[in-house]
């Protein structure tokens, strides 16, 4: 179950500058564990006290995971996971 994870500029120190990396898992939580195994330090930036960091948004195929089970959101082979910091609009 490989997915492509898009990494924002601010977190690329953990991926050696790579914009996107591959990861495995059938839920977002598993994907994050797999990311942590290969790119140490990422998990602590994404997850605070068992849920997603307030200023981090994660999308599976462009849909916000907070409305699809949060860390338990399902991912499947070939999905794109996009991580972005929360910024203002308006």
């Amino acid at each position, binding site marked *: 179950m490989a997915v492509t994870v898009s990494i*924002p*500029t*601010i977190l690329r120190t953990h991926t050696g500058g790579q914009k996107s990396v591959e990861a495995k898992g059938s839920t977002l939580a598993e994907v994050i564990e797999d990311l942590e195994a290969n790119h140490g330090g990422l998990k602590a*930036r994404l997850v605070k006290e068992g849920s997603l*960091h*307030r*200023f*981090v*948004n994660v*999308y599976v195929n*462009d*849909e*916000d995971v*907070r*409305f699809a089970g949060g860390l338990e959101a399902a991912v499947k082979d070939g999905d794109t996971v*996009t991580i*972005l*910091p*929360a*910024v*203002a*609009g*308006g």
Partner: protein
Amino acid sequence: MARYESLLDAVGGTPLVGLPRLSPSPDVRLWAKLEDRNPTGSIKDRPVLAMIEEAERSGALTPGCTILEPTSGNTGIALAMAAKLKGYGLVCVMPENTSAERKQLLQAYGARIVFSPAAGGSNQAVARAKELAEQNPDWVMLYQYGNAANAGAHYSGTGPELLKDLPTITHFVAGLGTTGTLVGTGRYLREHKPDVQVVAAEPRYGELVYGLRNLDEGFVPELYDETVLTGRYSVGSYDALRRTRQLLEVEGIFAGISTGAILHAALAVAEKAVARGEAADIAFVVADAGWKYLSTGAYAGTLDEASARLDGHLWA
């Protein structure tokens, strides 16, 4: 009613237009709420008028006052018109990577513009405006991101208008910026029809806009209430432009780029309803028309070219 005592009285009451050519089936229908028909051409006339009237009622805003606001454009333009008619000064803090038309319109209305750096997007405009508010205690910041009257304008206006014009509404789709439109309209609709789906379309910009120094510089508007929403899509500039052009070509509506992002989410919702064999009446917001974006090249050349030109710009 088509007669008003002044331009300020003509805010709201916008048409809801069916889109028979874009709707996927007779049972899954799309409806466009034409918010570009407001006095300054965008949905922002609603929250701006409500925030000003509330500040006048509370005594925060008195004749001759100067209003200060962080805005990427439409809120500033609406404020500039209302400030002019009501006799207030206006200082807008705007990211430097917004379209030329927005700057020119603000200047034409006589507003002062303070630019904030492109990197960091509206976060930097918010931060700069908060600094200016401290340095100029006599200025009045309405602060659209945390002002309850912003969502209130949609709770008392946009929401009831939609339910009256489309009692069979099943989905409401709008852009996510200050979150006022979605939270206010969504709250009203769900109080009256608990099963209504409230779906956000959030612009996904080029990397420059996400250029924060650390995650703690991130920003979630104080108005945001996640419990009102049922879904949230992130839409990049390519898809937003593609849908903006499709809306013009297929249904004749010349909308701004953020509306393309909203339509993209509305079509995703429509496809899901079709796949499930469910009927749906999906209303979405046309936030503004395309005029202010012509200089960005959004409507000319190939989608790839137009999308590349938008990279690094705030288009919603």
